[in-house]
């Protein structure tokens, strides 16, 4: 699915970004801090000026699972709108996913609005989504962090809280990184 060397590059990038932010290889990397470091603005649905109550209701109450986050690019500037109906852990993961698209240099899909006022994208690039998911996972939980969790025998729930991620993501990363196997 991924090009040869992609996973190792993601791990290296996760460490480089920590170094830039003066963090240790196993320290948690906050998605908000990284966004700031990259010069990307963040807001939530509630902060979008003049957004109708109906749109807010649909996006946050009626269909909160229909979308996660949107990155808008304009003249080289980027704004990420997060779904505040989701948990803090989910928002961190979604934000990191959007930042991963930026770090990977993925081209945004042009937006089209139909006469009926509906937004459609040109395509949904599954390869780009998979790459962003993988990099986001590495940025939040690089191998060094996973090894550190296992070595110190930190309780999984406590570790997930410390890194600001869901238990599902922690367990997934422990599995796919081979760290679970290494410590079994």
């Amino acid at each position, binding site marked *: 699915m991924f090009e040869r060397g992609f996973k190792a590059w993601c791990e290296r990038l996760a460490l480089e970004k920590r170094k830039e932010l003066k963090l240790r290889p196993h320290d948690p990397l906050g998605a908000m801090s990284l966004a700031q470091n990259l010069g990307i603005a963040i807001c939530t649905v509630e902060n979008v000026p003049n957004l109708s109550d109906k749109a807010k209701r649909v996006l946050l109450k009626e269909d909160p699972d229909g979308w996660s986050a949107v990155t808008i*690019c304009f003249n080289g500037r980027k704004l990420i709108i997060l779904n505040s109906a989701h948990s803090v852990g989910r928002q961190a993961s979604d934000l990191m996913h959007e930042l991963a698209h930026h770090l990977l240099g993925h081209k945004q899909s042009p937006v089209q609005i139909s006469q009926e006022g509906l937004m459609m994208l040109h395509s949904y690039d599954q390869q780009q989504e998979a790459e962003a998911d993988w990099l986001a996972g590495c940025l939040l939980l690089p191998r060094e962090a996973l090894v550190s969790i296992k070595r110190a025998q930190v309780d999984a729930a406590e570790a997930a809280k410390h890194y600001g991620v869901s238990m599902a993501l922690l367990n997934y990363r422990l599995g796919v990184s081979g760290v679970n196997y290494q410590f079994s």
Partner: protein
Amino acid sequence: MPELSLELLAKHSVETRAGQGVRETAKEIGISAATLSRVERGNLPDLDTFRRICIWLNVDPGKVLGFQPAAATGPEIGVHFRKGSTVKKETAAALAEMILLAQATMIKQEEV
């Protein structure tokens, strides 16, 4: 106004396959069966999927949508959008409103 609405597209799809299975039809169109099912339930696909369905239905995509660019007067605006391969119509409308308003704010900030 478009001659064929997105709502009618779903109905048209069900009528055109006339009892043929979703899997078989989806294969013919070149999309997944799950995506075709969601479209037939009124969800909105991405444009590539939409165009494939229009070709299969032998209808002009432009007549259904009557597109206007989101940033007709300014530089092209792009989005990354984390979601599934289809989205509910009401959600697509709310997202369009949110994106256009956020875009307008970014343009205004640039002008200051």
